[in-house]
C-alpha cells in the first residue's frame, strides 16, 4: 500500500482524487437537478418521485454514504493542496497581471467553501427540515414552494447556484486534464463541454426559486 500513500501525498495524486470525486459529485448534481425539474410537471410527480427515492431504503443510504465519502475526500484534498500551494508562494509580487486565469479558476477555493456552507443549510432545509418553517416529510412539493417564499433563503440559493456554476466552469474542464483524459489541443473541447454543463446546471437549479418568486410554481 505504499504506492497509495505516495500517490495521496503527491500534488498530482491528490488532484486526481479531487477530479474523480468531483466527477462523482457532478453526476449527482446533474441527476439531482433533473429530479428537481419535475417540480414543473406538478405536485403529484414531484411527491411521487420523492416517495420513490425514500422507498429505496438501504440503497439510498449506500448512495448517501458514497456521496459523503466523495465530498470528504474532495474537501480534504482541496484543503491540503491549498495549504501546499500557499506555502509555495509566501512572498507576493508588488505588481502582478494575470494573463490567463479566470474568475472561475480564481474562486475555486472560496466558492467551494460557500458550497459547503450551502450543503449544510440545504440538507437542514429540505431533508431534515431543521431550518424549514413548515416542514412535511411527505409533501415535498409544498416544502419547496414554502421554502422559497422567503426572499433571503431564495437569494442564498441563487448565490450558491452561481457559485456552483462557476465551480463547474473551471472544475469540469480541469478534471479531464487532471486525469489526462483529454486530447491535446490549443482550443480544448472539454472547455466548451464544461461551459455548457455549468450553464445548464446553473440555469436548471436557479429556475425553481425564480419560478416560485414569479408565481409560476405555487
Amino acid at each position, binding site marked *: 500500500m505504499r504506492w497509495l500513500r505516495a500517490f495521496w501525498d503527491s500534488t498530482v495524486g491528490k488532484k486526481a482524487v479531487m477530479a474523480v470525486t468531483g466527477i462523482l459529485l457532478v453526476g449527482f448534481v446533474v441527476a439531482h437537478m433533473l429530479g428537481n425539474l419535475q417540480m414543473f410537471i406538478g405536485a403529484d410527480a414531484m411527491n411521487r418521485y420523492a416517495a420513490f427515492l425514500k422507498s429505496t431504503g438501504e440503497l439510498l443510504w449506500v448512495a448517501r454514504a458514497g456521496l459523503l465519502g466523495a465530498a470528504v475526500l474532495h474537501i480534504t484534498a482541496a484543503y491540503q493542496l491549498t495549504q501546499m500551494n500557499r506555502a*509555495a*508562494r509566501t512572498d507576493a509580487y508588488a505588481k502582478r497581471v494575470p494573463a490567463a486565469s479566470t474568475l472561475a479558476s480564481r474562486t475555486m477555493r472560496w466558492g467551494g467553501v460557500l458550497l459547503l456552507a450551502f450543503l449544510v443549510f440545504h440538507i437542514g432545509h429540505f431533508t431534515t427540515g431543521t431550518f424549514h418553517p413548515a416542514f412535511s416529510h411527505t409533501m415535498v412539493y409544498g416544502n419547496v414552494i414554502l421554502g422559497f417564499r422567503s426572499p433571503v433563503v431564495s437569494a442564498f440559493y441563487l448565490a450558491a447556484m452561481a457559485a456552483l456554476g462557476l465551480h463547474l466552469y473551471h472544475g469540469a474542464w480541469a478534471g479531464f486534464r487532471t486525469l489526462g483524459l483529454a486530447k491535446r489541443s490549443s482550443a480544448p473541447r472539454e472547455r466548451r463541454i464544461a461551459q455548457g454543463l455549468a450553464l445548464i446546471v446553473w440555469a436548471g437549479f436557479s429556475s425553481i426559486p425564480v419560478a416560485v418568486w414569479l408565481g409560476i410554481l405555487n
Partner: protein
Amino acid sequence: MHLTLHVWRQASPDQPGRLVEYAAPDISPDMSFLEMLDVVNERLIQRGEEPVAFDHDCREGICGSCGLMINGSAHGPMKLTTACQLHMRSFKDGDAIWIEPWRAKAFPVVKDLVVDRSAFDRIIQAGGYISAATGTPQDANALPIPKPDADWAMDNAACIGCGACVAACPNASASLFTAAKVTHLGALPQGQPERERRALAMVAQMDEEGFGGCTLHGECQEACPKGISIDAIMQLNRDYIRASATKVEVAEWTGAA
C-alpha cells in the same frame, strides 16, 4: 526615453529586501531590457552605489539564465520572449517599470533579482534523462520516429529552464517545467524504459522542493518564452497516474528510504 524603475533590492538571502525607485533617463528604445539595466548599473557604480544583481548569460534567448518579473509579467509584456530579447521599444517614454525576482519558496532570492533555481536541476537529476549505451551511435534512420511524435518531443525539448512558469503560477508550481521534460522523453522510443520511473521520481522531487500543485489556471503557458503548452501537464498527469497504478514504489526508484 526617460523611465522610472522600481527595483527589488535585497543584499543577501537572509536580509529583508525592498523596492527601490531609480530614475533612468536617456534610455535608447533600441536597447534590450538587460542593456538598459547595464546602463543603470554603470551609473550606480559611478555614483559609488551597489549595482543591481541580475542573472544573464547568452542574451539571445536560449540559455534560460535571465528571468525577471517585469510589470507583473514574467519576462515582461512580449509573448514568447525572454527578458534578454525584450527591447525598450516595448515601453513608452515616461513609463514606470516594476522589476522583481521570481517569487517561489523553492527559488530563494540570492541577491536583488537573482534567485537560486537549483531545485530545477534536482528535478532533472531525479529522472530527466535516458539510459543509453554510449559509444558508436547507431544510424539515425535505424529508429524510425513518426514526424508528429518527433515534433511533439521537440516542442517540449524547447524548455530552457528559466523558471517563468513557476514565477507566473499563482501556486508557484513547477508542473510545466517537469511536464516538458517528462513529455519530451516520453514521446520518443529512447525514453520508454524509464517512463514510469521518470514520472514518479520527478513529481516526487518537484513536491519535495516545495513547489505547489497545478490548478489549471494556464498562467504558465502564457508566460513560457518557448511556447510550451499545458497539454504537456496532461501528459505528465497521465504518466504519473499510470505509473502509480502499476504500484511501483517511488522509494524503490529514487533509492530513498
